[in-house]
């Protein structure tokens, strides 16, 4: 069965600093990979997704992620963090079924931004 590990429960970065959130997955086939963000009291918003093709994926709000098959990783990056990026971030791997993706989520990483 597929699984997702987000090794960092909390991360604190200074505003303007770069950010990398780690995500490792376990899945036997070519994975469908997603990053979602959840602001306090809100639902999840899709940041970006990887299905195939270019392993560097651009998303919304200046985020990008790189798929590395050899490391089973899909880390999320942003070159300069803004205070509004403080939120919880979830990585997910999708098992493709005849209906679409059945998602398995990581436990999440809470990002704190200090001024």
């Amino acid at each position, binding site marked *: 069965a597929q699984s*997702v590990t987000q090794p960092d*429960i909390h991360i604190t970065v200074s505003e303007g600093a770069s950010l990398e959130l780690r995500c490792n997955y376990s899945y036997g086939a070519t994975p*469908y990979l*997603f990053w*979602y963000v959840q602001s306090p*009291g*809100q*639902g*999840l*918003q*899709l940041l970006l*997704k990887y*299905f195939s093709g270019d392993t560097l994926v651009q998303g919304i709000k200046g985020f990008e992620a790189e798929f590395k098959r050899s490391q089973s990783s899909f880390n999320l990056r942003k070159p300069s963090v803004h205070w509004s990026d403080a939120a919880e971030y*979830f990585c*997910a791997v*999708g098992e*493709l079924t005849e*209906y*679409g*993706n*059945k*998602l398995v*989520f*990581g*436990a*999440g990483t809470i990002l704190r931004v200090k001024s």
Partner: protein
Amino acid sequence: DVKVTQSSRYLVKRTGEKVFLECVQDMDHENMFWYRQDPGLGLRLIYFSYDVKMKEKGDIPEGYSVSREKKERFSLILESASTNQTSMYLCASSRKDSTGSDTQYFGPGTRLTVL
């Protein structure tokens, strides 16, 4: 924009009560999902539906049932609420695209407290 709405943001119920959580989407999506979100555990799939009157168990269906009588509406039912069902409940919807994959769009969540 896809809009997924949930009937309540906050709900407080007593042990043993029957609880209904409602979800409505306005994008004519075939697939709908119910997740629960708990700190440190991420999101876990309870049930999903790929068509009207169709349902499939997710990873943690025990203690829950679902109903999908209309395409746009997916209900989660707690037949006899228990304190261990205190959680955040998130609904999502999706449609399979030409690649065979899909992207799930989430509602704002319902925070349920069972006393």
